[in-house]
């Protein structure tokens, strides 16, 4: 490969070529001489040996000194190129990779996380490695780089991708049942694609559809959520809020409800809120009925904070490393059909039959080794790093039925 | 005299060694109460090495054994030193 574009691979390849090449020569030499001797001096032609030399000092010295020189060059070349794997060029883009049983998580400087490694082409990338449980190893054969992830100790690798593409990432330090499945990939994007990906909103926290629509439709150009109401009334949790309005010049007080909001959006000129100019455009057919429902729902309930995407959480926290969604048993029981399952668990040595419900799931995730599902090993790590909200979201998804991308 | 030419060591020799060992023990305790910085550990090890030499050469009678035994001990000590020393090339430079 062109050294300018894949520097780590070309350094290692040079060493491999040098050592394998000279080894091949040596091997061929030794084998040919050996076979030649065996044929030339076979007993049928040479019933007695024609020499009884017991040694030769000069020969011994020769074949001590020559191999020494050869291996010293091998050592030196290997070492120098190894240094190339360690010296990260200035200005490398940094990503943190965490290995855990049995999946990878990548975290970027802006807080974004992903289960595949997304990086731009043509730029040196430094991957800082860590582990939450046992040893793993980060191996990208295409770039000839490899380093163990050690719990409690930080290590790193670096590489630079020549062009857009997708490359395998393996775990090469044996780490238990799922070791061979601890595979992901590096998605090398063009710089533009990467910038776009990088600045997308962080993954697990999605903005509710209603809020998204408010932004898309430009509502927030006039309305605010922070209580300021210079142009238009502020949004917030509007359910049950009283309003002074005038309908065809007649003033009255109403309580905000769905019907009112529907009218206020579809035909704003009908009901005008006191103290504001009648400038809101009518959203007749621009908004579909279902979108309108989303918006109304959102306006009534207010900003309840970001909604968590349970599926994303499951993926990012490595749950799919051990649990499938298609009913096949991996290391742990499958998530398929979890909601109407009765599991048999062992608690403190006694066997119980439990109906799967939110409480059970919460226990199964928070303290997985208290109740062990029959026929499964007690190896599930406790998800202590997840907040209550995240657990709630996961449970909701599990009860609805998770789907794996 | 035993088969391999050993002479019998007198009780007195052993008692003298024992007194020396006791003194060295006291010495190492005293030395540890003086602050020598990193020197402390080396002083402690030095005294311990002296004590072991006394035990090995007198109590264990290495003095009277053939050269083979002594070379063996030397090999052992160098191997131990290598094991510890080479490990430090990793630990110190990490």
């Amino acid at each position: 490969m062109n050294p300018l574009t894949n520097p780590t691979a070309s350094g290692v390849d040079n060493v491999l070529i040098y050592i394998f090449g000279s080894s091949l020569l040596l091997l061929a030499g030794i084998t040919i001489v050996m076979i030649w001797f065996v044929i030339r001096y076979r007993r049928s032609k040479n019933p007695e040996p024609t020499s009884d030399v017991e040694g030769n000092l000069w020969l011994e010295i020769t074949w001590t000194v020559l191999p020494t020189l050869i291996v010293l060059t091998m050592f030196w070349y290997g070492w120098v190129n190894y240094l190339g794997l360690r010296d990260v060029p200035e200005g490398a883009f940094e990503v943190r990779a965490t290995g855990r049983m049995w999946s990878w998580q990548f975290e970027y400087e802006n807080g974004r996380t992903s289960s595949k490694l997304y990086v731009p082409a043509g730029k040196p990338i430094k991957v800082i490695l860590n582990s939450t449980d046992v040893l793993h190893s980060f191996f990208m054969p295409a770039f000839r780089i490899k380093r163990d992830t050690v719990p409690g100790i930080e290590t790193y690798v670096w590489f630079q991708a020549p062009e857009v593409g997708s490359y395998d990432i393996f775990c090469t330090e044996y780490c238990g049942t799922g070791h061979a499945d601890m595979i992901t990939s590096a998605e090398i994007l063009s710089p533009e694609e990467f910038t776009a990906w990088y600045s997308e909103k962080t993954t697990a926290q999605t903005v509710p559809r209603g809020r998204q629509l408010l932004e898309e439709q430009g509502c927030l150009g006039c309305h605010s959520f922070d209580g300021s109401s210079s142009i238009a009334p502020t949004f917030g949790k509007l359910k049950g809020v009283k309003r002074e309005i005038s309908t065809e010049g007649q003033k009255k007080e109403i309580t905000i409800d769905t019907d009112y909001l529907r009218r206020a959006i579809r035909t704003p000129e009908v009901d005008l809120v006191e103290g504001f100019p009648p400038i809101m455009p009518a959203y007749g057919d621009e908004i579909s009925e279902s979108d309108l429902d989303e918006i109304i729902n959102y306006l009534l309930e207010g900003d309840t904070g970001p909604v968590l995407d349970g599926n994303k959480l499951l993926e990012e926290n490595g749950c799919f490393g051990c649990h499938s969604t298609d009913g096949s048993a991996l290391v742990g029981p499958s998530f398929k059909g979890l909601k109407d399952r009765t599991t048999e668990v062992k608690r403190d040595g006694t066997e119980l039959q439990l109906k799967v419900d939110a409480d059970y799931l919460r226990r199964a995730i928070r303290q997985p080794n208290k109740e062990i599902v029959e026929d499964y090993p007690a190896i599930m790590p406790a998800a202590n790093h997840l907040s209550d909200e995240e657990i709630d979201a996961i449970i909701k998804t599990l009860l609805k039925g998770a789907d794996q991308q | 005299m035993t088969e391999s030419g050993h002479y019998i060591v007198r009780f007195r020799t052993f008692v003298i060694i024992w007194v020396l060992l006791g003194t060295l023990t006291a010495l190492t305790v005293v030395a540890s109460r003086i602050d020598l910085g990193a020197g402390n550990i080396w002083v402690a090890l030095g005294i311990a090495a002296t004590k072991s030499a006394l035990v090995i050469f007198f109590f264990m009678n290495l003095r009277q054994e053939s050269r083979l035994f002594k070379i063996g001990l030397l090999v052992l000590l160098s191997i131990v030193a290598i094991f510890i020393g080479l490990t430090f090339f990793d630990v110190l430079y990490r």
Partner: protein
Amino acid sequence: MSHEHRDDTGARFGMWIFLYTEVILFSGLFILYAVSLSKFPEQYSIASHKLNIYFGGANTLVLLTSSLTMAMAITAIQRGRKKQTLILCCSTIGLALLFLVNKFFEWSAEIGHGIYPGSEELAAMGPGVTNFFNLYYFTAGLHGIHVIIGATLIGVVTVLVSKGRVNSEQYTLLENSALYWHLVDLVWIFLFPLYYLIL
């Protein structure tokens, strides 16, 4: 069998080689110790102060003395003094027991203070201290096992001496168990300053 080939030097040499293996066994723990000491010098010194130097010192003297009695036992048997040999061997075993009793009280006291592997109080003292005590318990425990083995060995030889099977003509067994016992002493000679006396 017919050719009872006797080679006392060979037997002693074999014993010495066996002792080499014991030294390597402990050297594994000394590697761990040396690495941790260089990583946590302050914490090691703090932790070391929690060990009771009187117990340690006393045990050092006990072991040194037992080594003395064992060395003297060989002189005694060489001179053919069976009774003296028996007395010296028994004193060695007595001192070994004293060492163990001492150790028992020392450990009880420490465990009473909540210092034992895996305890929460230990965890609260930080990684360096935890590591010190983990290593201390493991190393001293392994040494304790060696004390027990050594004492048992000497016990067996004592019986053989009293039966006359080990005598002034044939006493390699006594010599070899003495060698083993001295090794137990040697290990302690290093354990004592390394664990009790770090400033």
